């Protein structure tokens, strides 16, 4: 069953002193693919700016804008209406030998490499070996996601935006970003190409039509086991109609929703709100 969902994501910064030169990039526009259709989407800023849009290396729609008039607050509102798809089924056509084939390893080299968020780790590699024993690749992905779900406690505040998977694992706590990174460490250690997906989640499994819920910015993973399919390790659920995806990459750094530079005093993040309404 597919849903039609409206997402209104409000984010931004507040500054101690007026800022005059601010350059920003927002990655807030949902993308279309076989299981997701973007009906409308826009990104607006206050103060208003002349936005420039482009598609980056990973295929993400980027909205770039700069602001030169003095301002103490920058608000970015991304709103979109998206038709989401059926629940993702694990793809089971790929075998371990398929995953080891040189052509495949080379094709997905970027989703097998270590990054600063997804670093190589001996202990986790041992866990990965344990998890893949006797399992098919698809089952190993599920096992890794469930393992991470059991190991980490969902607890905002312990980890920050720069924490790596290993940091989160040591703390045994984290948010969706950490759940996704930790899963990626395990999958890549198994030799399964795996990537980071950012997006939104409708928080109610049986969301009523026209009811606006407080949603959240979310992250999950996709793995290649004969084809790409997604799973949500934070909630240990398949990616389904409640998931609206925006960007994918090797890790968080490739898909950061809002980043930029400015000159002036220190900044604090505005309260981020995500309002998700099921329309149909």
């Amino acid at each position, binding site marked *: 069953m597919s849903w039609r969902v409206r997402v209104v994501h409000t984010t931004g910064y507040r500054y101690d002193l007026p800022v005059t*030169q601010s*350059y*920003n*990039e927002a990655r807030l526009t949902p993308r279309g693919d076989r299981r997701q259709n973007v009906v409308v989407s826009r990104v607006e800023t206050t103060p208003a700016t*002349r936005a*420039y849009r*482009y*598609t*980056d*290396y*990973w295929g993400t729609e980027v909205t*770039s804008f*700069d602001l*030169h008039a003095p301002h103490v607050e920058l608000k970015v509102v991304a709103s979109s209406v998206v038709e989401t798809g059926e629940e993702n089924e694990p793809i089971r056509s790929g075998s371990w030998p398929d995953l080891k084939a040189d*052509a495949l390893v*080379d*094709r997905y*080299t*970027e989703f097998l*490499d270590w990054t600063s968020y997804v670093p190589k780790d001996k202990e986790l590699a041992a866990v990965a070996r344990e998890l893949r024993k006797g399992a098919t690749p698809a089952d190993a992905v599920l096992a890794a996601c469930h393992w991470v779900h059991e190991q980490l406690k969902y607890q905002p505040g312990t980890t920050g935006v720069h924490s790596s998977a290993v940091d989160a694992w040591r703390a045994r706590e984290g948010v969706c970003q950490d759940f996704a990174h930790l899963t990626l460490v395990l999958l890549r250690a198994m030799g399964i190409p795996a990537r980071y997906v950012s997006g939104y989640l409708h928080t109610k499994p049986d969301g009523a039509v026209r009811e606006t819920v407080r949603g959240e910015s979310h992250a999950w993973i996709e793995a290649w086991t004969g084809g790409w399919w997604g799973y949500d390790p934070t909630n240990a659920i398949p990616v389904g109609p409640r998931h609206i995806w925006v960007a994918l990459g090797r890790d968080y750094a490739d898909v950061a929703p809002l*980043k*930029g*530079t400015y000159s002036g005093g220190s900044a604090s993040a505005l309260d981020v709100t995500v309002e998700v309404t099921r329309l149909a």
Partner: protein
Amino acid sequence: MTASRLSKLFDGYLDPDRPHADAYDEMFTSDEGVRSAYRALYESIAPSEVEDLTARSEALGRAFVDQGITFSLSGQERPFPLDLIPRILTASEWTKLERGIVQRVRAMEMFLADIYGDAQIVRDGVLPRRLITSCEHFHREAAGINPPNGVRIHVSGVDLVRDEDGVFRVLEDNLRCPSGVSYVMENRRTMARVFPDLFARHRVRAVGDYAVHLLRALRNAAAPNAADPNVVVLTPGVANSAYFEHSLLARQMGVELVEGRDLFCRDNLVYLRTTEGERQVDVIYRRIDDDFLDPVHLRPDSVLGVAGLLNAARAGNVVIANAMGNGVADDKLVYTYMPEIVQYYLGEKPLLPNVDTFRCWLPEECAHVLDHLDELVVKPVEGSGGYGIVFGPYATNKELNSLRKRIKMNPRGWIAQPVVQLSTVPTKIGDRLMPRHVDLRPFAVNDGNFIFVLPGGLTRVALPKGSLVVNSSQGGGSKDTWVLAPRSSTVERELAEPGLAGPQKVAAIAAEQGPELSNSQQQQQQQQQLSHRTEEA
């Protein structure tokens, strides 16, 4: 050696016991014949007395000191180490080199356009994807930036060496910010002052118009809608070792020399702050590294670059020359795939061969390298200036063992080459002329329609006996590089006009350079420039 037929100056020159006696000597054949390129030069200098040569050499040093160009080695000021014997290439040798360089630049332009576009060469399985994605200078931020006239390698410097058979081989490519062209021009200017008679006897092709070609290429690079494009040279600042070259080029082109803080972006247009207000900039010839270009995308702490620059280029409102991300094509591992790259894009065989190279990231080749470490030159893929290079034959066991560990740790980071005995050219050492090893860096400028190769280039020479390291920090010097015009040609040559000193051209350049920098400033910068060359080379 018995009863040499050579002039006294060359006493003991072809001593068979000299180190690297197999190296190709560019002046003499092994049986003491003089090669055609050097015949006129040999006839001019052979009858000279030793004192005469020394006097010329001193005049050369004085000319540099007069211009304020000295070089400090181990804290001691000495005249800029320009050797008085030029390095000479015949018209036919040069034609071959020129063709080879042009071919290489064409192939690499197509390679870069492909890599930052659809990466067909990877999809077609010609190159492994991980070769590209593992390059330190592969910048994903540059994907989708398409320069208006398609040129990414506005200026390139291809480092060439000549092997034992006299064959020119490419040692490495420099496609980011190759420096050193100011030496080519300065060396020539000084040589013309000290040896007007030699220039009268040779048809040496001129190098003084480099800036004209550079400016044409930069103006051509602008978007067609910019009717009178505004070009600037972006320098990291006076503290940079190559500042002298930046200012020289800006002055010769008649364009502004700017620093990052002089520029700003607004709504994806780049402006220059001037006393008359903001002026839009269309083309930036930048001499700062990729990582510093734009704090929004790259190093956030960069103060040398311009925030928003990358997206201004993406929007097509400004051209960055050389383009960002060119380093993926001059990576030393990608270099080893150049035959495949040239074949794939041009359907041709490379005209200039590479130096044979073993790639440590391929297990079989790595095993070979580890077994033959003591015979090979091992180089880090990243890094320049000769840093980290290990000459196997001269290394101690301890050095080799630590190298072995480092290769095993990071095979992608290393390549190995057999020791190439670089060709030799007579060089004044004490009061005699001795064979010393040289390399060559010609400069090519691509204006979109035509790839111009400056006839000449920077010849660096290793001054210590037997040394194969031409870097100036290792006691390297340089030579004026002469490309001879074919007898029938009408191309511009140095000091062609009657009146040997050639007042108009040489004097004009000299006058242009007069007022801007004080002597001591020039001195300082030239030194930094020298040390910089070391880092780059």
